[in-house]
Every structure is written in structure tokens, then in C-alpha cells.
């Protein structure tokens, strides 16, 4: 799994690629938490490169979501692939997370 972060407008776009699972979720959570601790609580997770997420990945996403919202921001997901979307739907995550078709829409949702 690879994670890169880029500031776009008022949000930090976190581009994730590969599988978010028990072998990689800790690294993802650490990277996202560092971003929030550094003052960037408005996060857009670009999941266009994520092929799969397991329970460990879901836990990392939820922990990040809670932390971002506690800091006045949010974690919003963009370009979620169908296989990952099915896991998010089955586990109820689509009812608590905001999803957007692409990164631009997710960034724009934060406003200026």
C-alpha cells in the first residue's frame, strides 16, 4: 500500500493505493493521524487505487473519521471502487461517511 498527501484547496487529499488490510492499516492510520495532528483535519481519501479493504482497514478509516471530526474537520471519500464500496455498504459505513464520485467533488464539498 502507498499513501501520498497533497494539499488541494482547503483539503488534504490522501491518495491511497493497494489493499487496506491487517498488514497495512496501521501505516495508513499513522499517516492520516499525522496529517490531522499537523492541523489538516479536512481530509479527502482518494480511494481510486484501493482494491480491497478488510476489517482492519475499516477500523483505520473509522478512527481517522472520528479524530478528524473531533478536530472540526472530516474524512470524505472519493472515487471508491465497486469492490470496496460493497464492503463499505455492507458494514454500514456509507451511512456515516460522505462519498463523492471524484476528488474534485470531494474537495469542493469542503468549500473554501
Amino acid at each position, binding site marked *: 500500500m502507498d499513501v501520498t498527501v497533497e494539499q488541494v484547496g482547503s483539503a488534504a487529499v490522501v491518495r491511497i493505493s493497494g489493499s487496506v*488490510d491487517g498488514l497495512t492499516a496501521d501505516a495508513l492510520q499513522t499517516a492520516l493521524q499525522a496529517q490531522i495532528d499537523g492541523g489538516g483535519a479536512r481530509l479527502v481519501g482518494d480511494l481510486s487505487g484501493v482494491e*480491497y479493504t478488510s476489517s482492519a482497514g475499516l477500523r483505520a478509516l*473509522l478512527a481517522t473519521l472520528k479524530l478528524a471530526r473531533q478536530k472540526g474537520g472530516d474524512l470524505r471519500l472519493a472515487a471508491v471502487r465497486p*469492490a470496496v464500496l*460493497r464492503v463499505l455498504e455492507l*458494514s454500514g459505513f456509507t451511512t456515516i461517511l460522505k462519498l463523492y464520485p471524484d476528488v474534485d467533488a470531494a474537495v469542493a464539498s469542503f468549500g473554501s
Partner: protein
Amino acid sequence: MKRRVALVIGAGSVKCAAALGLWRALERHGIELDMVVGCSGGSLYAAVMALGYDVDTCERLTRDLWTKEVTKERNTRGILAAIFPRLLGFDGRFGMVHDRAMGKALAGPFGGRTFAEATIPLHIVATDLETGQRVVLSEGSVFDAVRASVAIPYVWRPWEVNGRWLMDGCMSDPLPVDVAMQEGADVILAMGFESPFPRRVKSATRYAFQVNSIYTNNLLRANFAFHNLAHHTEIITVLPEFDRQIGLFSTDQIPYVIEQGERATEEQIPYLKRLLEGAPA
């Protein structure tokens, strides 16, 4: 320390046959299971795996069992008793479909078989009609456990097991990952399905299927969210993709369903192997 691997097969009618494809993939890669948990339609496959039937036999058994014949015969007396409860004596346990065909179909693979004969520890989930509680059956008659677990509300009568009237496990726990967690599983392969809706609601039976699917699917999502967050290691969700509608009795699609189950499992095998080889979860 060796990680304990569980397979959990949730409700999902004929789609549950995808578990046979999963099983085939695990066998091919030499991955052994430490327990199997099943609910509703998934209990059929959990049970046949645990009892040692081979995949081809299971496919044949599925074709024999999952036919429209099992819902064809109406439970006329039960229906009349529901309409005229005082006159005919409604006993509080109702099913529109007669038990006969279901009993005959289940007797083939499960008649006289017990949990003690299982080569892999087996747990089957049902729901207590009186209390609504999840009931985990792990000993005694496999036939009784499966019959109880598949007792779809309003369609088949609840089934008595050890003095309790039990019904479909999907009423309390459609994808019983929590049972595997309680039994000490580390890595859990969860194959679950949202219950299908009938193509057309053209009978009371179909209406019952429709209503059941609505609340079962909502319960599935709520439970599964909690289980994913609560488990200490890993739940690997195996979700076969179907490019066509798989109806309640689409038995002609069984080979395709099995193939898709195998394909979805193959995608997870590399990660599963790395986990089991000792990489930290």
C-alpha cells in the same frame, strides 16, 4: 502462535452455494479451517462441509434440495388456523408452507447425523421464537439445527430443539461473525449476502420473502459494522460478484454461483496466506 481460521457463511438462499467455490479454493491452497459457522441458507453449506461431503456431492445435493418443490405444498391447516384462530386453534407457530418437502430434502444429507461427527467444529445459528435471542447450536442433531436455522418467518414453521422453538437465524444474526469471535477465531472469512428480493411479489409467500429481506438486510449491515470494529484481528469479507440476478430458486445458476465464489476467494488467497504465515495482523 497459529492463527485460528473460521469460515462464516451467512444467510442468502441459493447464493450461499458460492461457499462451495470458496471451499474449493481453500482446499486447492491447502488452507485448513478450524471452525465453520452457518446461518439460514449458509447453515446448509457449513454443515455439509463440516460433515465431510465433497464439493461435487454438495453441488448435487444443492440441486436436489433447492427446488420450487420445497415451497410448493401449502400448509392449509396452518393457514386456516391463522385466519380462524379460535375455531381451529392457532398454536403460535406458523408457516405457510408444509414441512414435508423440506424435511425430505434435509433428511438426505443430514438425517441421523450429529455435530459430534463433524470433522471441523460446526456451529449453526438460529433464533429463539419466544425471546428473539440468537441461539448457537453446536451439539445434537444436525438435521434439527439446519431445519431450525432455515425456518424463514411465515414461510416455514419454527422447529423445536431441546424444548425451544427456533426459527431462521437471520432474524437475529444474518452473518454470525460474532460466533466465530466467541469461539476464539483470529482470522475470519465472512461470506455474506444481502437477501434477494423476489422478482415479483405475486403471492403471500413472496410477500413474506420480501418483508423478511428488508429487515434482514438492515440487520445484516448493523451487525456487521459492529463486528468489524469489535474484532481483534481480521475479518476478510468475501463477496462474490454476480452479473445477473440470482433469484430465490435460481438453481440453474448454481455452477455460476460456485464459480463466482471461487473467484472471489482466489482474490483473497495471497493476503490470507501472508496472514497465516505469521505477518502481524
